[in-house]
């Protein structure tokens, strides 16, 4: 593994600034991306949909939430409640992200309405407008970590490490997301949102924002009426005290890796994880594989990984191992934002497709 160096100019990560025009001019928007070759018959097998795994996991997910919430309520005021809500919080405030993600892709279940219902529930939990974020994520897949195009770049350069640390307790994420929902509920959408949400979808986005805001405000009213924080521990609160796992695994997806490239092996990271984290995360630890083939359901990603791993940089062997790599790069990026991790491919892999992206696309002019 090596750190590649380049000099850097400060970048505008908005979708309506000069970087957006630059990405289009350089052919980085809606571009052709590198894919590992997989025979069509094998790919069809990997893409095959079924309801079974996601029904099992969803029943388990919602069942565990019901059990831990009940346990927490019944033991409220004792130390046991802390234990129950520690588990409930992660199920609500972290597992929601992967359910939102997979059901948003429409790959978790074969039956479409199941994807739609779980997507709505998870969107509520994760405090995301279910309409606008569907379009946001489509753009993330079209233009993954293309500056000026991708609205979901989690770690911008130079990275603000204190802010990233606070994200583990939902700050300022929760405030920002709720503010966006409030704004959407009032019919207001920013220029970035309007860049990726079709105008025809705005009315639906407003309706869902109003529903989500109303439920949360309802929980606040009940909390005041009962003079108890318990309603907010059950609704909304887990997005603060239980979100740490979502951030823990989410930052690894692209953190410290390249910007403005058209080969997911350069800008995404796969990490071997423990089975509990993989269940919470629905196998999105195979993130290079997911970006390369987003039609493959979460339950088939381990098989996809086995199939194409010889064409990918080696997956990090654990979460701590991946953090060791990423944090070193992020610390360095604070002062030298042009640095990024360029991982060594195994000899069996096809070379990085540097030709697909403009070699000059990594910023190279020193900051003024």
């Amino acid at each position: 593994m090596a750190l590649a160096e380049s000099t850097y100019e400060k970048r505008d990560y908005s979708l309506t600034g000069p970087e957006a025009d630059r990405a289009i001019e350089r052919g980085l928007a809606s571009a052709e991306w590198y894919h590992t070759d997989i025979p069509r018959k094998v790919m069809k097998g990997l893409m095959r949909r079924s309801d079974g795994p996601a029904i099992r996991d969803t029943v388990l997910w919602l069942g565990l939430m019901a059990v831990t919430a009940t346990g927490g309520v019944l033991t409220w005021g004792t130390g046991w409640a802390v234990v129950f809500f520690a588990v409930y919080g992660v199920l609500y405030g972290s597992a929601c992200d992967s359910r939102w993600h997979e059901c948003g892709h429409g790959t978790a279940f074969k039956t479409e309405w199941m994807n739609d219902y779980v997507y709505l529930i998870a969107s509520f939990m994760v405090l995301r407008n279910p309409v606008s974020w569907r379009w946001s994520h489509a753009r993330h897949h079209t233009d993954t970590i293309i500056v000026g195009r991708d609205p979901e770049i989690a770690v911008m350069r130079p990275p603000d490490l204190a802010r990233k640390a606070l994200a583990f307790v939902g700050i300022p994420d929760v405030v920002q997301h709720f503010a966006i929902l409030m704004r959407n509920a009032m019919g207001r959408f920013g220029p970035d949102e309007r860049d990726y949400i079709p105008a025809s979808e705005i009315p639906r986005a407003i309706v869902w924002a109003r529903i989500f805001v109303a439920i949360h405000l309802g929980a606040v009213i009940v909390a005041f009426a009962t003079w108890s924080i318990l309603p907010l521990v059950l609704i909304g609160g887990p997005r603060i005290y239980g979100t740490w796992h979502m951030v823990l695994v989410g930052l690894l997806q692209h953190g410290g890796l390249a910007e403005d490239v058209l080969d997911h092996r350069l800008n995404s990271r796969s990490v071997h994880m423990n089975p509990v984290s993989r269940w919470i995360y629905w196998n999105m630890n195979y993130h290079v594989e997911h970006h390369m083939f987003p039609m493959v359901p979460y339950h088939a990603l381990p098989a996809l990984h086995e199939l194409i791993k010889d064409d990918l940089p080696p997956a990090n062997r654990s979460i701590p191992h991946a953090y060791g790599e990423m944090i070193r790069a992020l610390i360095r990026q604070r002062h030298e934002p042009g640095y990024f991790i360029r991982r060594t491919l195994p000899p069996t892999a096809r070379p990085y497709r540097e030709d697909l992206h403009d070699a000059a696309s990594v910023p190279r002019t020193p900051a003024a």
Partner: protein
Amino acid sequence: MSTWIDACAYDAIEEEDVIRFDHDGRTFAIYRSLSGDVFCTDGLCTHEQVHLADGLVLDDTIECPKHNGRFNYKTGAALRTPACVNLATYPARVNGDRIEVQI
């Protein structure tokens, strides 16, 4: 009236699958349903310029490989966002052991 154009061998497409067919500077997708009928649509997703032939055929639908937008490949109807604009469809038929399309 357009003429029928020879596109490919019938056996070139598996049941419930799709292949890409390029003709005269345009690209199309040709489908074979579970019942053995054949269909033809434009080859690129109406959301973004992605070849549908790399996607997944499931019952009467084709799912785009990039963003999972879905269309009914028999009618061209867009069924799932981010696909919002319908696909153009074209007549297709089996002639002996060949598939012909009228485009």
